[in-house]
């Protein structure tokens, strides 16, 4: 299967297989007016399969949100048909309105205007906790 290479833009690589559509939606890539390619279940030497997203335009990508979803992702920056930079991601200290607190006792369950804020409290175990009620985010997926 051939997908056109991109001239200027991004190749978001090493996405955990099955997560590409989620990233597509969270980054609002459907709103772009350029070519976006989503490749799922591509072969990967490291993990067996992976997803890839190619974006044929220089846009502002929310790397913190990407890092929160999957910090093993690599973001390749392409200029004039060449990869000029490979960016590794890190777990962000805080994420806002990317995940929702599911604790029915949390104040965010009744005060709808509040941002849903999660803070990284344990980097080793990748544990985020709600800023308000401190409930851990069980499943980032």
């Amino acid at each position, binding site marked *: 299967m051939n997908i056109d290479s991109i001239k200027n833009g991004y190749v978001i690589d090493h996405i955990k297989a099955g997560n590409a559509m989620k990233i597509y939606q969270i980054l609002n890539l459907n709103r772009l007016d350029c070519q976006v390619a989503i490749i799922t279940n591509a072969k990967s030497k490291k993990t067996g399969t992976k997803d890839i997203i190619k974006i044929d335009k220089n846009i502002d990508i929310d790397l913190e949100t990407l890092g929160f979803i999957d910090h093993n992702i690599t973001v390749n920056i392409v200029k004039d048909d060449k990869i000029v930079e490979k960016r590794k991601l890190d777990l962000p200290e805080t994420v806002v309105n990317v995940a929702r607190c599911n604790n029915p*006792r949390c*104040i965010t369950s009744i005060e709808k205007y509040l941002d849903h804020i999660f803070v990284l409290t344990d980097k080793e175990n990748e544990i985020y906790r709600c*800023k*308000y*009620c401190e409930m851990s985010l069980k499943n980032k997926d």
Partner: protein
Amino acid sequence: MKHLIDIKDLSVEEIDDLIEVAKDIINHKEKYSHKCDGKKLATLFFEPSTRTRLSFEAAMMELGGNVIGFSEASSSSVAKGETVSDTIRVVGCYSDIIAMRHPKEGAPYVASIKSEVPIINAGDGGHNHPTQTLTDLLTIKCEKGRLDNLNIGLCGDLKFGRTVHSLITAMSRYKNIKFFLISPDELSLPEYIKRDVLEKNNIEYVETKNIEQYMKDLDILYMTRVQKERFFNEEDYVRLKDYYILNKLKLKKAKKDLCIMHPLPRVNEISTDVDDDPRACYFKQARYGKYIRMALILKLLEVK
């Protein structure tokens, strides 16, 4: 401006200072009787809690201040749909300091973001209740003379019991503390507290279902009530509510200077035959609660 939302907001030194001020208040009440003349405390209780509210109100009155507020959400503008932030900003126009209880976890933190006066968290759901923890620390300090080198038994609802979570967090900062966690499996201490507080700080602990197993080793036995309001399922509550009942017989092997504590209200978990035992400290504990709240109000209002 400082708020008290979580016991972790206070350093060990600040807690020690509060305890010293509270002890001074106990010994020299008259010295403090006009410290808050002209000041107003607002007690905003979005869920009822008579003893905590009365403790705050008595504390402010004994400092010479006045009290305004409400004791349940139905009698406040919340019933009309007002947000916590709006309520706090309005009440801040009428008061110098606010003590707030709310059934939703994190509500006092939301209040503190917009408040122009100090906020004291008087309990938010099953989350935090820092003034209860300060009360417990003052009780331990006054009754045992120290906050280190203690064997502390925690019994009952260790899962939803916020007083227990906060006390473990606070006591983990002192040296040579060992916890005995006594609960049925369904109400055992959450894993994240074991991992993030106990194991992270190398605090020794043992878990048991048997209240008598380690009785002879304890310096403090902290009993808790199984709280109906924390259960979504009535059947679970009925099954677990009377799991532990402390009575004279069970105290047979306990140390002569054991300190029995309970945040109150008690239901069945401590038999009334224990009340006259000199080791029963839970009513004294309620009194200590008023003094530590007086010390806290002075600190947050920056009254010297």
